[in-house]
């Protein structure tokens, strides 16, 4: 039994926040300095009444319109977000109903932050390879803006809101390689959403407050990601030359630039999709894939390395071969 990632789509909310707006609102920096530090010019924000699940639904519907033949055969739905509709039931179960998926479909919430998509992809592959489902729908949706204080120009400049949908299917040939993953809870305080739960409810940010130590994260990424890259290559018996495009979690322009240099990857083999969307947490990798497919940078047959890393600290990654199939 083999599995492949056969299609990806995404949704970005309508509200645009510019660097000028952030500088004016926070009275810190200017558009150019914010761009230099973040690599982001504009990002989208979910509306006041727009839940991540609403964005996920839109991304899913775009994808399912194209993959209509799979919709009544989906055996598992995996939803990845830090902000669910409610504590219970899981938001995947609610999305299951809104998407009118089969009653026999498993629904799971798997919030994984920056490594959320690659974690979900590993899980989806496992479900298909185990023969438990022929199709697995992964939905990622993040609204980090709802956890950022109104005076934090750094976080406001880095993060954006957005959602993605990805379809993993049983295929004749294996399109998803072996995974490497790991955790280092020593970094738990370096990037976290604090408060907003039973222990520490927050009146001003009901979903908790995002906190980030940029220096810690930079050191973690530069220490761990090159090793993860190497581990994924070795585990899949590949060399760097076998990879057509490296797609990392789009943490920030600064981190991506440093990683590209440290891993010595040429510009034309390193995907950056950040400038007009920002860091959309678990959605960065699928949004990057979908846009690169749209603009022709990813073509059928290309081998892509996907590496997710961040909050936890946690990391996971693998290689996929893009098929670009429509059922």
């Amino acid at each position, binding site marked *: 039994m083999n599995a492949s990632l056969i299609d990806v789509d995404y949704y970005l909310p309508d509200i645009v926040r510019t660097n000028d707006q952030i500088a004016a609102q926070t009275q810190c920096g200017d558009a150019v300095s914010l761009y230099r530090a973040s690599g982001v010019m504009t990002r989208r924000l979910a509306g006041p009444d727009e839940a991540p699940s609403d964005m996920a639904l839109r991304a899913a519907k775009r994808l399912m319109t194209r993959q209509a033949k799979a919709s009544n055969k989906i055996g598992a739905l995996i939803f990845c977000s830090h902000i669910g509709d409610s504590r219970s039931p899981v938001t995947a179960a609610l999305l299951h109903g809104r998407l009118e998926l089969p009653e026999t479909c498993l629904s799971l919430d798997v919030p994984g932050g920056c490594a959320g998509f690659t974690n979900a992809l590993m899980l989806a592959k496992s479900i298909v390879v185990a023969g438990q489902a022929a199709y697995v729908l992964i939905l990622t949706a993040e609204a980090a803006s709802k956890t950022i204080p109104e005076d934090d120009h750094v976080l406001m400049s880095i993060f954006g809101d957005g959602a993605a949908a990805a379809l993993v299917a049983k295929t004749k040939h294996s399109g998803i390689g072996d995974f490497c993953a790991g955790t280092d809870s020593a970094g738990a305080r370096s990037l976290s959403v604090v408060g907003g739960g039973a222990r520490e409810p927050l009146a001003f940010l009901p979903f908790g407050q995002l906190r980030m130590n940029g*220096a810690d994260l930079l050191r973690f990424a530069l220490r761990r990601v090159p090793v993860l890259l*190497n581990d994924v290559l*070795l585990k899949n018996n590949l*060399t*760097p*030359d076998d990879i057509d495009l490296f797609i990392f979690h789009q943490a920030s322009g600064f981190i991506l630039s440093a990683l590209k240099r*440290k891993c010595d990857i040429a510009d034309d083999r390193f995907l950056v999709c950040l400038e007009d969307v920002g860091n959309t947490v678990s959605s960065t990798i699928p949004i990057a894939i979908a846009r690169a497919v749209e603009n022709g940078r990813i073509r059928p047959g290309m081998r892509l390395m996907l590496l997710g890393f961040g909050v936890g600290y946690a990391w996971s990654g693998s290689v996929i071969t893009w098929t670009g199939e429509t059922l």
Partner: protein
Amino acid sequence: MLGPALSSLGQAKHFEVCMTLDDFIVLVEAEFEEVEKGTLKADTVFVEMKEWCSLYALILMGLMSVEFDLELTGDDLIGIKTVSDLYAFADKRQGISRV
């Protein structure tokens, strides 16, 4: 030490680098976009540069990792006042001045 696969990406070459203090100054200066070329000296105090900001600390952390596979922490930076101090830091851990 990273395995053979990443070495072929060019990983290994950086970490065998030897350089003089003068070359090191050029390397650091190239990272600071706003700094006029040729103005950075061995005794330049980082925090007294008019362009200095928190991003520059991240730039130095990134540079040490990318070029020398060294982790530079915030605590390290408290004790590193000048370019010369940073060179000594890299030399102590990676022996970059060896001939």
